[in-house]
């Protein structure tokens, strides 16, 4: 028995932290960390509600798995692009105007 407000509060905090990280960071990799936190807040919400609802399709957990996989795919492409950026510019500062 877990009171639902606990995981939900964690969801909110994670999302907020992610949002903060996305904006407050100028290093591209650190921005990615913020994005991961947002994704994880979504995951936690899925898992929590999946457990509450417990539907036949196991939607909550299946979607969490999907999201984790998508996150991995995203990170791969993202890091490749960030490396390309680094090689072009010598830094990965997102506060610098693009060309």
């Amino acid at each position, binding site marked *: 028995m877990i009171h639902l407000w606990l995981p939900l509060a964690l969801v909110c905090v994670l999302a907020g932290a992610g949002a903060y990280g996305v904006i407050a960071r100028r290093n591209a990799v650190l921005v990615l960390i913020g994005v991961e936190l947002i994704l994880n807040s979504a995951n936690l919400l899925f898992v929590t509600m999946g457990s509450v609802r417990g539907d036949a399709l196991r939607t909550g957990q299946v979607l969490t798995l999907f999201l984790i996989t998508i996150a991995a795919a995203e990170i791969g492409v993202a890091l490749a692009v960030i490396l390309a950026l*680094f090689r072009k510019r010598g830094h990965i500062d997102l506060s610098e105007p693009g060309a």
Partner: protein
Amino acid sequence: MTSLDILFGAVGLITAASAVLAVTTQQLVHAALWLVVALGTLAGCYLILGAELVALVQLLVYVGAVVVLVLFALMLTRAPMGRSPEHSSSAVQRIAAAVIAAGTTSLLAAVLLPALGGEVLSARTGDTKAIATQLFGAWVWPFELLSVLLLMALIAALAVSRMPTTSPTSPVPAETEST
């Protein structure tokens, strides 16, 4: 307050704290490491919530793969060790970020907690087989799409990283049209 409540509260607190630290620390590598902590404890939360498969995958994929990739990236981009305020944006933007973060948190909380905060959930464990069945049964179409996505992400990442580039110090290369 049940024991699970307390357990979840403790683990969740660590998760939240490490998540906040991950986005606020001034040291790059620390940020990545705090992320590891956050993701790892989150896996613990999943376990408490009865999603053991998800927890495992979380550890495997996120902590095992994603964070390693992030660390590699930090190293490849010659990230400076030690404290450096350069990684955060201007003070104004950070204040804005704090406001937005608080806004996001409260918006979500205002929507979620009144509706569901009072409910309780009883975690069910040992659901892995059912999940597997549904994953490859009902969810086969998104699963297959996901496989395509992973494949293409891999190819894309390879293609982008193998792209011929010039050194950062050289002047802007001539614009060429790929058409």
